[in-house]
């Protein structure tokens, strides 16, 4: 599932890149840097756009709605939005939670 999600994020990142000056180095795969609050690749508008696009594609792929920008994510010390890999790990956790809680 993790690999599938990484690929999904890469696809969305590549699509977003077409509109960005500061492109996400999606070719680096899981280690590609997204956002670390200071000098990440994405400005906040682009991050919002990416998060929404990823949420929607996860919804389509797994038929489960998740909310990426939830309280936990916003307060986690290690932000899940740092890299493509950390975001994918976080999505795996959310999907598992969804599946166990129904």
């Amino acid at each position, binding site marked *: 599932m993790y690999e599938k999600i990484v690929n999904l994020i890469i696809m969305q990142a590549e699509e977003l890149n077409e509109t960005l000056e500061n492109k996400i180095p999606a070719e680096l795969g899981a280690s590609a840097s997204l956002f670390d609050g200071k000098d990440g690749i994405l400005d906040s*508008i682009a991050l919002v*756009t990416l998060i*929404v696009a990823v*949420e*929607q594609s996860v*919804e*389509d792929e797994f038929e489960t*709605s998740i*909310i990426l920008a939830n309280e936990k994510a916003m307060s986690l010390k290690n932000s899940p939005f740092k890299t493509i890999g950390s975001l994918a790990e976080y999505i795996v956790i959310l999907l598992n939670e969804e599946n166990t809680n129904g």
Partner: protein
Amino acid sequence: MDETQVMIITGTRKGIGKYLAHYYVSKGFIVIGCSRGEVDYKLSGYQHFCLDVSDEKKVKQMIAKIRKTYGRLDVLINNAGIASMNHILLTPAHTVHNILNTNVVGTFLFCREAAKLMQKNKYGRIVNTSTVATPLKLEGEAIYAASKAAILSFTEIIARELANFGITVNSVGPTPVETDLIRSVPKEKMDNLLARQAISRFGTFEDISNVIDFFIKKESEFVTGQNIYLGGI
């Protein structure tokens, strides 16, 4: 924009929302509505969802369905709302939670989820509902008026946050309109209230759709973060 526009209206079972659903279907919009109860009408071009606007999961599911069916959303009208006349000393906390959940949390959830879909096309029009009870400081409506004051602030700020996505956010503040919402207000109180308007009459459904028409026009792309009160408040 040549294609048919897709619109969500909340609170369409009765009152203002029911009128708006009929009105915008007749103007050629695809309208998707919701309320806790079923609707007693059928309209081609109208689809209904039974949900509570403060139920995050259900709201997400509704927008996901719209995304899959139409792939777009052009307009959101946050109309669902409840009121309760009560002196503060007689107001149960439970009532406060209910009003805030429907009027504030419901509006928030629909704005958030709708904007996620609207931003794909870099186009969107959101209209929230305020009320003259806020500027008129109506006694007995402290929580209702406060919940709508929250809508004003919320509208002004998300108008800025969503501007970059081509989404405008405004609100319309009706005067009393004869629906179930105000049925329990005593006549004398109502007459006093109408007397405080520049134009002392009840509002009509058409007064409201007229303002919404303006906000959701394509040409209104430079109008955002605004509230229009009816009746001359």
